């Protein structure tokens, strides 16, 4: 069985991370706005407040949860990027030691482990 492959350079991973981080920031702001509105819900009167609190609680919580998730995705991408880069460097050293000397790339040259084609942005953007 063929395992699915993905061509993604560490640079592509690093470019994707800010998308999630920006989303996390925006959703966090929206959540805080709704929480702030929650604090002022009493000003609309006792008959309105319970319904308004439920409404604000629901969507404020949801926005904050989505913000946390987005933040986590961004961090995950950065972590993957760091890991792959470290893996590249350690694998390169190992390969360099195994390859015949004329084929040995110069030290410090990163190797692409996940394919030889042009790296693709996982989110469809051109690098």
């Amino acid at each position, binding site marked *: 069985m063929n395992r699915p492959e993905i061509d993604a350079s560490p640079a592509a991973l690093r470019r994707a991370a800010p998308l999630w981080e920006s989303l996390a920031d*925006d959703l966090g702001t929206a959540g805080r*706005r709704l929480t*702030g509105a929650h604090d002022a819900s009493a000003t*609309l*009167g006792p*008959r309105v407040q319970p319904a308004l609190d439920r*409404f604000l609680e*629901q969507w404020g919580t949801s926005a904050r949860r989505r913000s946390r998730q*987005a933040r986590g995705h961004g961090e995950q991408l950065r972590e993957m990027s760091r890991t792959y880069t470290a893996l590249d460097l350690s694998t390169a050293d190992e390969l360099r030691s195994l390859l015949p000397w004329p084929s040995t790339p110069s030290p410090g040259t990163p190797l692409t482990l996940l394919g030889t084609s042009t790296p693709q942005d996982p989110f469809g953007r051109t690098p």
Partner: protein
Amino acid sequence: MTATETELAVAAPSAVLEDCPPPSARSVVTAVRTAHRIMATSAEDAGRHSAPPQWDDEHGERATHLMTATADGVRTDAAALTVGLGALEEFCDRLDVLRPEHESLTTRRAALVRAASSSTLTDPDAIRTHNHAVEVLDTAVRDWNRRLHAAEDRLVPALASADTVAEAVSIARAADDVTDLRHDLTTAVEQGPTAVAVLWAGLAPAAREALLAAVPTVLGRTDGLPASVRDQANRLVLGDDLRDLRGARQDGTLTDAQRDLLERAEAVEQALARADRYVDPRTGDLAGAQLYVYDPRKFGGDGAVAIAVGDLDTAEHVATRVPGITTDILDTPTLTQEATNLYESARTAGPGTVASMAWLDYDAPDAAWDPATLTEGRAEDGGRRLADALDGLRASRPDPAHLTVIGHSYGSTTVGYALSEHDPDVDDVVVAGSPGLGADVDRAGDLGVDAGHVYVARNSRDPRRDARRPGGGQPRQRRRRARRRPQRGRLRRGPHPRRGHRPRRVRELRRPQQVLRARLGVAGQHRPGRRRSRRRRHARAALVRPVVGRAAGPGA
């Protein structure tokens, strides 16, 4: 204690005025609006990096793609916020109207409480005056409390309809389908009010909410929709107009055109606020008002408006009154007051629930000397609009109301065209101060209502009783009476000794008509009192109307 002493006791206000939410309550709206804008933008941004909606998801790639799932989720949350935001904005708009009244009532109440607790009131007349003021205040306080509750009763269910994930998903799905829904609605509108009513009845609540949020302007003018829906949509549009224009005024960026627009919108706001406060004389409850038509930009800025007192969706008796020349949207407060008066008269005259609507969704001529007054192009166009509105009122209700149409002045000509050319289902017709009911109406029977259900009211001193237009017919009984009077001779004698130059106005009305007839080469063809065959009338109408339109210019 004697009865007299009891009557003379100093009364204190008994009705408790409830608290009015402070202006700072609007901060909630501001916060929700900001959160909504951020989330809508975030959903859009994430959507740009998502799998396309039409992706063939055979392997479940789209379903597991986190950016796509996040975009969908945020879009769903934003859709729920849209519903709550609209309801909150409407509520705060209502509070803006209620708040100054609350301050006034508070001041008046405090003064009356002070007076009642002091020992200064000893004179019987002063005590009676004071007690009457207390009674008036208590009524006003109860009315204010009722209006606050009515506003709350609109907001709370709206918030509750969008406070779970399932509801939000439903709303968002409907929002995604809004394009299709709009297409369906457009198709139904082309088919007529009945098709619109059928379509609306078949929509899920979430789809209705989505349409309301997306296209309130369209819903507010669509015949065949329940009046409550049109009211909700038109109030949203009115609220948006007022917010935008007042914001521009506050910023100092209001243009002259916007100033005029704001004046028109505020006229409607004022009329609506007053109608909202009106209390049914039988039940003591709020009668309720509905903004059935609202378009302050229509007809070159004259605007279109219709406000009903009572519930058009459920009332057993529904009256639609069409005003005449010189009326435009700035007259909405007066027209609505007249509708309220009619409501009150009808309610006290007999049993049954009532709705009374002032309908001005046609371009009424601007003045007696407006060329459009002398022709019937606007009445003809208005007649078509009126017939559509009447068909819409019929179609939107499962149970038929007793429907009466009332036309005043040029409005009666509009009514005549609506009934004679479009045949809406109307039970009774009343025309007052009518200059004629259109080219095809020579007898009451031409209006298509049952015998004995056409009523003509006129003032013997009304100059319009003699006014006729080229092609303008009148109910037969009027013509007979008109022939008996030597009106032309009297008019030519000059100003009336008591009424001054008013008869001259009739002559002014006549003269251009004679000129028009001469131009058209139809002078002498129109003989009041002579019954023409329907075929001849149609032939004549075909001859006259297009030429009249040209003679009167594009504004006719």
